[in-house]
């Protein structure tokens, strides 16, 4: 279990305090995967570094596994950190050690005897599918393999909690998916509690049970992923299943935007609707994704007969319909647009942001097109209609 309680972190720079995290509260129950999403400079990395006390919070508490880390002294903190596995964006592997040597490092730090270390390392290397590379040096590995080594190392001391700071950033989509599948498998097998810091909505949608949106150091929205995507008013929910451009309704038909508001929507609802109404239902666009294995998102349809009140017709079926001219769905919802752009707040020293939301690979972290899921990005959409 991870509990972050009114955590505030301010950095002093040029005689002024910069509040990077402002009363952030967050709770992740045992065995859950929680995502923290937000634009660059929102304070995500600082939050991650505060959770294992690499950065000491200015105020507030961080409780991991029932232990208040903020109350611990140096030596106790070292012991407490061994129960938190951390995965980093750059994997942070020692170039001087082989894969096995890297995985062995936390065991050596904790003083595990050599024989025990050897069996545990072999076990871990196999768990992440790198048994053929145990004696390879990191320089010879691909990005995904390096991250697997980082995960094996994070698991070495059998932690209850895994902290992942942008672990899939910079990996290609296939590799990202395989890393996320590995994390989900680990949660299922070991009952790990995982806190994922990310700027990719897809990561949240694919593995997270719950998510918090962090902007300018504050949590603006949080909740269970399943509940957020079925809430037509949730900015985060719309960000998870972003609006995409839709086609024009043929022959003067009325366009409707239909949002899935329950997790038990009949997947064949369009066919049924056509049958019941006796009119053509044209599919103009769809953003339907599997969340927790169930379809969620929204669909844009057009009905030939403009007098039909689709909202009324779909009531009680877990679907919420609104006339398209009412919702102006072509434009991405405002909150998501903010999430995408998110320039540093006025008056804030950009240097302070760069220093706190540090990108260890040295890649520019500020490029919005790369750093955030653009709603209009041509990502594969699963159509279930």
């Amino acid at each position, binding site marked *: 279990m991870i509990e972050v309680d009114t955590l505030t972190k301010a950095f002093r720079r040029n005689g002024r305090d910069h509040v990077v995290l402002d009363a952030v509260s967050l709770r992740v129950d045992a065995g859950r995967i929680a995502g923290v999403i937000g634009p660059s400079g929102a304070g995500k990395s600082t939050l991650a570094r505060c959770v294992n006390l690499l950065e000491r919070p200015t105020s507030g508490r961080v409780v991991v596994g029932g232990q208040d880390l903020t109350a611990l002294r140096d030596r106790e903190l070292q012991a407490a950190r061994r129960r938190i596995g951390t995965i980093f964006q750059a994997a942070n592997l020692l170039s001087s050690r082989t894969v096995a040597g890297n995985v062995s*490092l936390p065991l050596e730090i904790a003083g595990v005897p050599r024989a025990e270390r050897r069996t545990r390392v072999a076990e871990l290397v196999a768990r992440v599918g790198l048994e053929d590379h145990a004696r390879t040096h990191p320089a010879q590995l691909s990005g995904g393999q390096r991250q697997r080594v980082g995960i094996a*190392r994070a698991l070495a001391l059998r932690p209850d909690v895994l902290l992942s700071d942008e672990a899939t950033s910079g990996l290609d989509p296939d590799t990202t998916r395989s890393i996320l599948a590995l994390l989900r498998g680990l949660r299922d097998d070991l009952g790990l509690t995982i806190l994922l810091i990310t700027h990719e909505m897809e990561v949240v949608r694919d593995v997270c049970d719950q998510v918090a949106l962090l902007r300018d150091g504050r949590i603006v929205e949080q909740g269970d992923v399943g509940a957020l995507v079925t809430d037509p008013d949730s900015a985060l929910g719309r960000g998870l299943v972003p609006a995409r451009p839709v086609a024009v309704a043929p022959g003067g038909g009325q366009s409707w935007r239909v949002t899935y508001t329950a997790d038990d929507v009949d997947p064949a609802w369009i066919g049924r609707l056509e049958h019941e109404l006796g009119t053509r239902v044209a599919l103009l666009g769809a953003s339907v994704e599997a969340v927790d294995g169930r379809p969620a998102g929204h669909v844009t349809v057009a009905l030939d007969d403009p007098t039909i009140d689709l909202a009324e017709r779909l009531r009680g079926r877990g679907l919420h319909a609104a006339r398209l001219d009412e919702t102006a769905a072509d434009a991405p919802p405002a909150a998501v647009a903010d999430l995408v752009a998110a320039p540093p707040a006025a008056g804030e020293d950009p240097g302070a942001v760069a220093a706190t939301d540090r990108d260890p690979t040295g890649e520019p972290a500020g490029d919005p097109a790369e750093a955030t899921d653009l709603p209009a990005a041509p990502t594969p959409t699963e159509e279930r209609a």
Partner: protein
Amino acid sequence: MTLPLADATPWDEIWELLEPALGQTLQMVVISTAITGLLGLLLGVLLHTTGRDGLRPLPPVNALLGLVVGIGRSVPFIVLLAAIIPFTRLVVGTSLGTSAVIVPLVVGMTPFYARVVEQALREVPRGLVEMARAAGASRTQTVRKVVLPEAAPGLVGGLTITLVAIVGFSAMAGTVGGGGLGALAIDYGYNRYDGNVMLATVVLLVVIVQLFQLVGDLLVRRISHR
């Protein structure tokens, strides 16, 4: 008027001159490098860890160490050799001879190597230090298991540079009767116009430096896995 080189030592007798000098040079260089390496490493680690972004920032200590290192590096070796004679006598019991040269060589080169060490440690990515801390490593463990091994290629490469510099400075050993190839070259080659000895010592010095550099480079390549 040109002086004939008739008095030059015949080539077949040169090795008798070179051999003891080579032995003295190697003795000075190897022992000084070993001690300089250890002390410089210690000082360099202290400089790095007490630095502003170090594992344990201690600005006053860091400033003091920086001052000591700075002073050590600004005194010319030939002056240092004479200036610390009382200290040399205290350490090795004499201010003359080969072992008396080792003391100023170590005193003179340790600050240099300390800076080289500090530089090499600075090149270790910060993320690795963070990783070690996050894994629950103490500061000492972080230095021993992460920072030093990762900086090893730089440390060895820097030690090679230090060693070559020590070969150079050891040539001044003659001024306090320390012997060695440098002294030989000055005594015979310069003062007695013995061109053969001059040529032979220069060639031998070049060969020694090349060999050390070669071994150093091989070692660096061996331990570097970047």
